[in-house]
């Protein structure tokens, strides 16, 4: 099965031949970490697998993440994004997994439980492919200035962190010299440091919350070590321009309800505004299939197999839920692949008892949102507000795990074994954060 298709090719773009097969057990949509991990696991389990990637190469977002911090959980090693993702790419290239790049799934149709039809546009032409399952791992997109209410003119020089990162670290292009960063999540913090390391001036990082949203170690290593000011409880309300390029940002202090405080406006000069205000799962194709979308995660509603409300269509990675670590995306990809294998082998995922997950006290979002009660369940969730010394409680089964500190920016990951879940007598399971005494 692992007959080599081509030699490992670290960093070299390999353009695959036109795919010839028309039927697959699973089609993985997205060639980033979640998709690659899913494909490898699916093939390992014997599924005929195709990976579809829109860009000209496999790898996804880690290709542009030249900072360390990748693989700490999965490989127990600290790597850069490209190092991390090339472990998967090289492995994939040594298998007979089919993949296609510059390829876009234009349409997906649910024909029957064991047949989904995909129309894929490629430079070779339109491919019509039939598959038993789909693993949707198309990643996320970044929120834009318009979604966070920045008004003013529409000049050049306002871009998302990912766009700036693509320019700098894939294409060697310097997008600005005097940078203001909006958002103090890890992406914003890392980009602040990245700009300084390239000789740019970072005039500040603006955060609407009263505390930084990134990891404490990143606040130290990316901002404090370089003397970059962090403006907490502030937001950018508008921009000004000169000759078509941004020339300054109007920053204002906000109250506890995130409403601007009159008279605190301050103009900060900059030639570039980098928006690092969070990500949104990409769900267009899932929506076209009729999959239910969770307004909290903005991703699909799934069961413990990461199966969406469309039978045989699974989701993983940032297309499922916005993850803190690439390791989680990989984990979800592998779990989705195992679930797809089960689906193919058993002709579907059976439900023992449908259970709805309910968000209780101080829980903002969670996946899975429902259970079949046929397997262990791995929960990923986020709290609504920071709290110390609490229980993470799965109420109806009386299961509690102590937590020293919970933060919205730190994802909660908790596995619950099937034997525990089986104790459930109701058809809902409430997940909540409660004080420890």
């Amino acid at each position, binding site marked *: 099965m692992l007959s080599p298709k081509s030699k490992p090719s670290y960093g070299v773009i390999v353009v695959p031949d036109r795919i010839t097969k028309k039927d697959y057990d699973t089609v993985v949509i997205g060639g980033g970490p979640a998709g690659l991990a899913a494909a490898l696991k699916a093939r390992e389990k014997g599924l005929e697998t195709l990976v579809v990637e829109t860009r000209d190469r496999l790898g996804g977002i880690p290709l542009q993440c030249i900072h360390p911090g990748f693989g700490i959980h999965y490989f127990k090693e600290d790597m850069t994004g490209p190092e991390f993702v090339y472990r998967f790419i090289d492995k994939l290239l040594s298998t007979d997994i089919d993949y296609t790049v510059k390829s876009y799934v234009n349409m997906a149709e649910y024909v029957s439980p064991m047949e989904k039809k995909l129309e894929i546009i490629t430079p070779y032409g339109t491919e019509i492919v039939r598959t038993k399952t789909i693993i949707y791992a198309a990643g996320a997109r970044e929120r834009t200035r318009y979604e966070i209410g920045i008004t003013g003119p529409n*000049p050049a020089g306002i871009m998302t962190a990912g*766009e700036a990162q693509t320019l700098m670290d894939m294409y060697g292009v310097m997008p600005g010299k005097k940078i203001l960063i909006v958002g103090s999540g890890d992406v914003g913090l890392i980009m602040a440091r990245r700009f300084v390391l390239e000789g740019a001036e970072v005039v500040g990082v603006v955060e609407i919350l009263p505390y930084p949203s990134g990891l404490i170690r990143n606040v130290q290593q990316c901002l404090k070590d370089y003397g970059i000011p962090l403006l907490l409880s502030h937001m950018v309300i508008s921009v000004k321009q000169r000759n078509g390029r941004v020339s300054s940002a109007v920053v204002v202090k906000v109250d506890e309800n995130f409403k601007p405080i009159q008279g605190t406006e301050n103009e900060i000069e900059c030639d570039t505004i980098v928006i690092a205000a969070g990500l949104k799962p990409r769900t267009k194709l899932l929506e076209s299939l009729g999959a239910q979308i969770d307004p909290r995660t903005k991703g699909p509603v799934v069961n413990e197999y990461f199966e969406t409300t469309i039978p045989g269509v699974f989701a993983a990675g940032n297309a499922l839920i916005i993850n803190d670590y690439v390791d989680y995306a990989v984990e979800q990809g592998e779990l989705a692949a195992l679930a797809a294998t089960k689906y193919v082998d058993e002709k579907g995922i059976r439900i023992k008892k449908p259970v709805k997950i309910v968000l209780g006290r101080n829980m903002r979002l969670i996946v899975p949102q429902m259970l079949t009660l046929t397997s262990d369940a791995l929960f990923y969730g986020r709290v609504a507000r920071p709290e110390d010394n609490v229980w993470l409680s799965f109420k109806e089964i009386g299961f509690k795990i102590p937590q020293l500190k919970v933060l919205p920016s730190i994802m909660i990951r908790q596995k619950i074994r099937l034997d525990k879940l089986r104790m459930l007598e109701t058809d809902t399971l409430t997940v909540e954060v409660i004080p420890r005494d």
Partner: protein
Amino acid sequence: MYRTIIIGAGITGLSIARWLTRYRGLQVIVIDKEPDVGWGVTKANTSIIHPCHEEHPDKHPLRSKLCLEGHNLWYKWVKELEIPAKWPGEIIVATNDEELKGLHKYIDYAYRIGVPGVRLIDRGEMLRLEPWINPDAIGGLYAPTAGTINPMMAAIAIAENIVDNGGKLLLGTRVEDIVVRDGKVVAVETSKGGIEADIVVNAAGLYADKISRMAGIDDYSIHPRRGQYLLFSDRVDVKPNKILHTAPTPKTKGVYAITTVDGNLLIGPTAEDLPEEAREENTTTHQGLDFIYEMASRILRKLPPRNKVVKTFAGLRPEPSTGTFIIRFHEKPWGFVEAAGIRSPGLTAAPAIGKHVSKLIIERLENIEPRKDWRSKRQAIPRPAYMAPRERDKLIRENPDYGWIICVCRKVSLGEIMEAVKRMKKIGVPEITLDGIKFRTHSMYGDCQGSQCRPHIAYLLWKRLGIQPWRITTKGDGSKYAFTEVKALLRGDRGA
């Protein structure tokens, strides 16, 4: 050969130019200060082809006539030029008795101008016609002929057709003076040198009064009236089929809610009178956007949340001090023509303004005859993602770039982007801009506003055409996309 120079490559100037290319004996040149067509008033408006029943036939006889004639010409133009358009009809939604009473007069206007099918409808029929209307509304006025087009696609299509018929565009060229000798216009001085002219047409939009003054005409002035808009994702469920708007006021036609030809919910505009000097103040404000959101909620059953907005923008309208269109052929100086103060319904009227102005010119010239070889047709850039597979595959076989979707929000292929660049060069843009590509292909136009595809597009332009990303601009002038290459700042090179 009479040389005709048209100042302003907006929808008005281009429509005039298109009509003039139909004649032999005329050389048609369109000048604009911007590096592309349609970047002034044309770029940001409500994109409606009005039925024209809201024009006062006595106060604005010319405007109402041109509006209706323009409306009828658009049916033909959108087909000839493959401009995205639809004709769903419109409803003015009344939310109280006073507004409802105010609608009666439009039936009279419609009858006198000749707008078909305009009638009052009761609440029940209104909600059946358009279920997205707010059930609190009490009645409305239905005008079945209203349509909407993509104005930028229209400007681009007309520009391509002009060039195809031998007309010339001088973009990125600023008019500095108009030379009058012996009571006649003889030349235009520009930032790129002087050009002799027999006829000079002023279609300069927000700057028309300044151009007129260069020819010694100063009996009117222009001030900008700003309109702000919110554009929602094409994936929100609120998609009114009909064009909806609040009851008109003396200043505006009200706040609209429409599903654009591109499938986005668009709400707006405000109508803010700005001082004369604020002709580049196309900026949005929190106050303005909040106002629109509030007004739109009166006519819609439900509004998508504000975080479903993909873009907010503002446009400026040239509001003339005379309050109405200024369209005239001057005898003094002879050969100076104005199509100024083209405020709403300027987009609707544009083809008719073009016809009217070209007539004013032609009837004063000798030996001008219609051309037999005039080409009425122009083809749009193919959009493979929206084609049937067989047709698409034929296109991809000829050019595999059409098989690589670069912009996933709007499903735009590399082939479309490269074709847009080719066409930009053909009409003579002085530089390739990212906005120029955006308006032609709708890449960078979707939910992510280009954050995913723009760097790749810039990179591919670099690799394919040698345009370095720090040389390309978003919208010309100083709007550079990037500054330099990575490491250059560390070397002490601060870039351009």
